[in-house]
């Protein structure tokens, strides 16, 4: 066994039994607490990747104990090791090809009979085993007692008791692992064979004998294992033996004959009979070593389930929980988002400060508009996304998600999706990228692809700024919340239609049958939720730091070049003239205060107090205080979306006027001067300059590649009610939907001030009707998903063609749907 067992590969999978390195694999049923144990062993030192060629997650980590470095591979949770599912094949292949030093089989102690099914197959593989009775506290509470010594003898492996979520037993486990790994190979080990009954055992031995001539096969896989698998008609094994055995025909015929005999004698196919015998073996072992003293009929989980899975109540609970999840994401996340937005603003300012104030440097523009603007736009959503994923992780770890799949299954089935599909869709509300990765939980490739293709229709977080810009621009306050809801509903409705169409024309055939375990409810651990959340959030971050960064830079380049050198207006001259006008006005004020006429002290923001006359300093401080008060007032009105005739507005305004009055009291003689400074000199100048800057940006953009492209596609967009400006912004949104708003800002030359949002909205209201506003949102909702989604769809589906199909299909659908909406709306005179 030793010689042929190590396949040397170039990567770090090379197994080295030498010195103090031990490699172990964790195998076990889903929901057996395997992941928690893996976390307990490896903590933060884990690495998640993919098994080569398949989209099955590969988790590896490191742990140190007694001077040994233990590499831990967490195999996918499986119920058995057949060739029927990709997870099982991956797990099996790893065990055979890499021959870990120890296989740690994790069993749910309160559910041991079913869990031991996998164990019997691990025993047959002949690998050194350590059995872990996890969740032993639950078992004890249920009155189940184990004779560990006997059970260990019957199964041929040491047994350790653990309570994973309380981190108990980890040390004993490591002890057992090291003990088994360091047992010299020629120590006699109790050979345990899973007996299948006399007749079948004979058939197995006969086939084993036929194979004994094939050294390579037998030493690599084990003769008995091969024989049993052949009897079970395991296709993968059949393939390997066919290509490896010297006398394949003889083997094949013997196997066929044996299968016929078994079917004749026992009335069922060989694999079912063998499976039955396995359970028989398990049952026998358990009868001797497991005692159930108390017959607990209804566990706590069952009582909760009586309500949670019961028709209407269950649905109500589900809806309430989903509402809770979104409430958490949007309300709690909002202030955090604001903080991040502010931080990015500061970062932008800090970077801008590295250049002189009116520098035209492309590098500066690249960093601020391209990098910080683009990437920042994505990262700002991080709080929302983390909260959403945390809530979902909590629900998953608690076991509720299985119940949710139960409730959603009927609905999903009617649409043509699998019950489990709703989980990726839920994640899709945050970000489509991890949602696409989450489709891995679907077993059938068909279900996975269909879900992946329509996922972008579930409005992701990136579309929110678009809605936040357009909805208040075109719709009165009482229509706003319904409009937002409508966008989400339309998305979901289109997804449903999309699935139906895909199922009818492309992916014909039934959805995979729903077979899912309902684990008992469990209190999630903080550590588990954090790790779980982090796995998804990091996908989002990676999207931001790689693809969006690359595309933001690309978009920036397209929007900056070609640079129009001879502009229509001489902006420099106009800015200089504006400065001159301001200085003239300032000179008078300077004279009144005894300052030199060309002093710019009064409009400065940071003041060197020692060098200036006292009253000038006071004037500047007063000016700054008034500015701050006005800003607060504007923000309050904007935050609460106050209308000028509402009582709340009056209240806020009264407060503001009170503040101003107090300021006046502090320096009554300077107050009118401060107002003059702000409203007659500084204010108008700043606005004028901002206008000029913005107009220049708009002109440059129109001349750039993006602008030209926008004009180029304008005829295509006209039937939708769009113009080249919207076209330009849509092109920019290819990098990430969040960039749509930024691009609109530039096209409309609203510049960078705080009131940019309102200014932009005002312009939009001017140029477009509410119908067009709605159509823009509709188009953004449906059309081609962002580049990151494209990339991850290509990777998860294994073929670029699906990502292309998704992008093309969605864009075409967006065009058609928006066209219909616009034409219909115009015809009916709605919102024009």
């Amino acid at each position: 066994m030793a010689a042929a067992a190590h396949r040397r590969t170039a990567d770090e999978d090379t197994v080295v039994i030498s010195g103090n390195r031990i490699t172990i694999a964790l195998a076990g049923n889903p929901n057996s607490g395997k992941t928690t144990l893996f976390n307990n062993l490896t903590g933060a030192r884990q690495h998640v990747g993919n098994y080569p060629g398949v989209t099955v997650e590969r988790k590896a980590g490191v742990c140190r104990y007694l001077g040994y470095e233990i590499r831990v591979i967490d195999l996918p949770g499986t119920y058995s090791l057949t060739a029927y599912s990709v997870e099982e094949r991956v797990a099996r292949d790893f065990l055979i090809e890499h021959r870990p030093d120890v296989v740690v089989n994790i069993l749910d102690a309160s559910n041991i009979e079913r869990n031991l099914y996998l164990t019997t197959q691990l025993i047959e593989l002949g690998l050194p085993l350590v059995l872990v009775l996890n969740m032993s506290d639950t078992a004890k509470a249920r009155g189940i007692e184990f004779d560990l010594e006997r059970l260990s003898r019957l199964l041929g492996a040491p047994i350790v008791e653990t309570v994973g979520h309380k981190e108990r037993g980890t040390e004993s486990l490591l002890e057992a692992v090291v003990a088994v790994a360091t047992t010299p190979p020629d120590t006699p080990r109790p050979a345990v064979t899973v007996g299948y009954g006399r007749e079948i055992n004979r058939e197995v031995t006969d086939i084993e004998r036929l194979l004994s001539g094939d050294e390579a096969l037998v030493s690599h896989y084990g003769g008995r294992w091969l024989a049993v698998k052949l009897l079970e008609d395991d296709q993968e094994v059949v393939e390997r033996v066919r290509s490896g055995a010297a006398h394949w025909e003889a083997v094949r015929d013997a196997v066929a004959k044996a299968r016929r005999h078994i079917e004749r004698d026992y009335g069922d196919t060989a694999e079912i009979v063998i499976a039955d015998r396995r359970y028989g073996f398990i049952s026998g072992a358990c009868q001797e070593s497991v005692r159930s003293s108390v017959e607990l009929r209804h566990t706590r989980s069952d009582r909760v389930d009586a309500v949670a899975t019961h028709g209407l109540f269950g649905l109500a609970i589900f809806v309430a929980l989903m509402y809770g999840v979104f409430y958490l994401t949007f309300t709690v996340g909002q202030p955090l988002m604001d903080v991040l937005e502010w931080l990015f603003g500061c970062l932008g300012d800090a970077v801008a400060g590295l250049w002189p104030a009116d520098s035209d440097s492309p590098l500066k523009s690249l960093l601020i508009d391209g990098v910080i603007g683009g990437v920042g736009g994505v990262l700002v959503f991080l709080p929302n996304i983390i909260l959403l994923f945390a809530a979902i992780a909590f629900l998953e770890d608690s076991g509720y998600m299985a119940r949710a799949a139960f409730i959603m299954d009927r609905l999903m089935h009617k649409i043509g999706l699998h019950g489990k599909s709703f989980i990726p869709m839920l994640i899709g509300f945050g970000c489509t990228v991890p949602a696409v990765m989450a489709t891995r939980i679907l077993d059938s490739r068909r279900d996975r692809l269909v879900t992946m293709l329509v996922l972008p229709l579930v409005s992701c977080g990136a579309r929110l700024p678009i809605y936040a810009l357009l909805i208040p621009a075109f719709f009165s306050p009482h229509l706003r919340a319904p409009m937002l809801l409508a966008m989400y509903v339309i998305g979901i409705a289109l997804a449903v239609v999309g699935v139906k169409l895909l199922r009818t024309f492309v992916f014909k055939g039934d959805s995979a049958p729903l077979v899912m375990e309902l684990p008992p409810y469990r209190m999630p651990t903080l550590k588990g939720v954090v790790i779980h959340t982090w796995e998804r959030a990091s996908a989002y971050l990676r999207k931001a730091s790689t693809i969006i960064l690359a595309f933001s830079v690309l978009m920036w380049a397209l929007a900056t070049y070609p640079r129009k050198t001879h502009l229509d207006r001489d902006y420099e001259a106009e800015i200089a003239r504006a400065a001159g006008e301001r200085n003239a006005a300032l000179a008078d004020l300077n004279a009144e205060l005894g300052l030199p006429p060309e002093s710019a002290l009064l409009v400065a923001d940071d003041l060197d107090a020692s060098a200036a006359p006292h009253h000038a300093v006071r004037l500047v401080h007063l000016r700054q205080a008034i500015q701050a008060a006005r800003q607060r007032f504007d923000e309050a009105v904007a935050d609460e979306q106050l209308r000028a005739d509402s009582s709340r507005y009056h209240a806020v305004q009264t407060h503001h006027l009170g503040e101003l009055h107090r300021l006046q009291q502090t320096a009554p003689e300077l107050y009118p001067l401060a107002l003059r400074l702000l409203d007659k000199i500084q204010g108008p100048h700043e606005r004028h300059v901002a206008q000029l800057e913005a107009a220049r940006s708009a002109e440059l953009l129109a001349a750039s590649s993006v602008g030209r492209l926008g004009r180029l596609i304008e005829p295509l967009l006209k039937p939708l009610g769009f113009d080249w400006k919207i076209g330009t912004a849509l092109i920019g949104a290819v990098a990430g939907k969040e960039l749509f708003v930024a691009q609109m800002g530039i096209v409309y030359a609203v510049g960078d001030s705080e009131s940019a949002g309102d200014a932009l909205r005002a312009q939009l209201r001017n140029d477009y009707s509410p119908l067009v506003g709605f159509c823009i949102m509709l188009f953004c909702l449906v059309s081609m998903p962002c580049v990151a989604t494209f990339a991850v769809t290509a990777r998860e589906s294994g073929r670029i063609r699906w990502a292309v199909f998704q992008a093309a299909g969605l864009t075409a659908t967006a065009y058609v749907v928006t066209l219909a909406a616009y034409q219909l709306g115009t015809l009916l005179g709605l919102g024009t």
Partner: protein
Amino acid sequence: MSLSAVVEGAIVRLVRVNAGCGLRSRLTAMGLVPGAELQVVRNGGRGPFIVAVKGTRLMLGRGMGEHIVVR
């Protein structure tokens, strides 16, 4: 009789699953082997079943109910 006809709360034994080898193998590994004792926890006429077998609870799609033979 088929699983769909079993009342909630009843305890039955599995006779046979009429399905392809992939699905049968999966169900077997989860405990549904001929002769196994099942309790039907939820059978609401619509939506998936919930059955208790070998100490766990399994959710099975409605469509499978016709193909699972019990007595």
